[in-house]
């Protein structure tokens, strides 16, 4: 029983989502940028009014997409929050059952005259040795200035605890390009981030230091940049780079992203490829090069359904023969109401194209957005 609970916790958090954006709706709804739907310039978290409208348009059942179904609040206050849980099976060889909580967080943004204060906090499993105090935490808290507070384009400057903008930033962060490619879960750091989001292109640059108090997936100090250029109304290409220096190792990431929407079949493709150099500086040291890639195709099916099919590749060490893995993902989202989402997600993973044991999972996830 204990083992089942441990497995459940491990997989739960391994597949935990932290309310990142749904860029599957980019380009197909006339919102080419994250700011089209989100308050933050790099997406995720609190939805703006247009994001709430998109949630209403894409849901199966009608409803008010506003916070708490349109509950009255001051105009200077934006609120959000997410509750997620999941259950299912892991390890295709044995189909071990797993059920677990994933996320319980609330978010608030207070804004006036172009300045705003954002905070995102909630519960997580006991951290840092199990102290009950560490069950409460805040992944993000930062101040932001934006040049055009009533628009979705312009300059943005953020300072505080945040996720350095990097890569595609899909909600399913177990994608190889995120998990191994420089955008893992809980990698928020303290930093200064500047962004320009325009009609034709956007650029983000972040300098950061690791959290000196709470442990984080990001143990280094460094910087990240991401730039994306839109090619007409239905395509975009991007490039990113990130460098982190931690006491035991340094990482350098560089990659490319691409997005292509095909209006006829209503199909959106997103792709990301990263090359990673890991330099172990501790002990006798070592230096490796890794590759991570992901291709995701998304298609709305009507009735609030959205199907994603993804393919991933990860080369753990380019020096070593056959040290790579590939995966095939399928995610069926069902946006039941503007606030309720069901997700059936499955992965089959092959090591060395079947030369080693396979991995994977089949999980049903519940998501409620406040």
């Amino acid at each position, binding site marked *: 029983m204990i*083992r089942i609970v*441990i*497995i459940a*916790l*491990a*997989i739960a*958090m*391994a597949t*935990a989502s932290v309310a990142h954006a749904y860029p599957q709706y980019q380009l197909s709804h006339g919102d080419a940028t994250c700011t089209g739907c989100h308050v933050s310039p790099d997406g995720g978290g609190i939805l703006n009014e247009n994001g709430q409208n998109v949630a209403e348009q894409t849901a199966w059942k009608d409803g008010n997409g506003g916070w708490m179904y349109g509950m009255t609040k001051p105009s200077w206050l934006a609120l959000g929050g997410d509750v997620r849980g999941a259950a299912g099976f*892991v*390890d295709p*060889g*044995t189909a*071990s059952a797993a059920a677990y909580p994933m996320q319980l967080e609330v978010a608030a943004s207070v804004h006036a005259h172009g300045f705003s204060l954002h905070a995102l906090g909630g519960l997580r*499993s006991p*951290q*840092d040795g*199990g102290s009950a105090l560490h069950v409460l935490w805040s992944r993000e808290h930062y101040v932001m200035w934006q040049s055009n507070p009533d628009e979705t384009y312009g300059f943005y400057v953020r300072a505080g605890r945040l996720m350095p903008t990097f890569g595609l930033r899909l909600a399913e962060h177990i994608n190889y390009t995120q998990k*191994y490619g420089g955008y*893992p*879960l*809980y*990698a928020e750091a303290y930093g200064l981030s500047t962004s320009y989001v325009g009609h034709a292109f956007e650029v983000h640059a972040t300098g950061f230091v690791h959290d000196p108090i*709470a*442990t984080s*997936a990001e*143990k280094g100090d460094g910087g990240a940049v991401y730039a994306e250029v839109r090619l007409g109304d239905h395509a975009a290409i991007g490039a990113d780079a990130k460098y982190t220096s931690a006491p*035991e*190792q340094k990482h350098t990431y560089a990659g490319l992203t691409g997005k292509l929407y095909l209006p006829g079949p209503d199909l959106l493709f997103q792709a990301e490829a990263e*090359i990673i150099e*890991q330099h*172990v500086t*501790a*002990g*006798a*040291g*070592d230096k*490796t*090069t890794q*590759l991570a890639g992901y291709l995701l195709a998304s298609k709305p099916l009507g009735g609030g359904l959205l199907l994603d099919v993804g393919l991933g590749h990860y*080369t*753990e*060490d*380019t*020096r*070593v*023969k*056959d*040290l*790579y*893995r590939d995966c095939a993902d399928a995610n069926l989202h069902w946006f039941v109401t503007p606030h309720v989402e069901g997700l059936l997600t499955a*992965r089959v*993973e092959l*090591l*060395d194209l079947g030369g*080693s*044991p396979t*991995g*994977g*999972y089949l999980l049903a996830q519940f998501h409620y957005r406040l």
Partner: protein
Amino acid sequence: MRRSIALAVALASGCGTAPDDRPATLEVITLEILAPTCGQVQCHSSTTNLRGYALDTVAGARAALADKTSQDGLLKVSNGKTKLIEVIEATGGKRMPPDVPLADEDIALLQKWIDGGELGL
């Protein structure tokens, strides 16, 4: 030049071509194998410390691997195999990591490190 060509070939094919000659040290097995798999932040990391194991740093791994006697000691040997290798190779729902099995090459390097006297521990 030869190294550049080898790297170019490796990049083009997405995988390496050489046998595994990675150094079997604590630092390498921790930061290149255990940390990206077992030591993800939500599992056996210094953040979550699941079951008392923090395998995302060398210090954490050293502490976790130092115990060779207790029931949960990762290097405790039973039936000729350490607990670490046993759980990584396990079947029947007992394998770790449960959804992302380690590659044979990684398991072999871990065993090589153990057989070599656990360099760096």
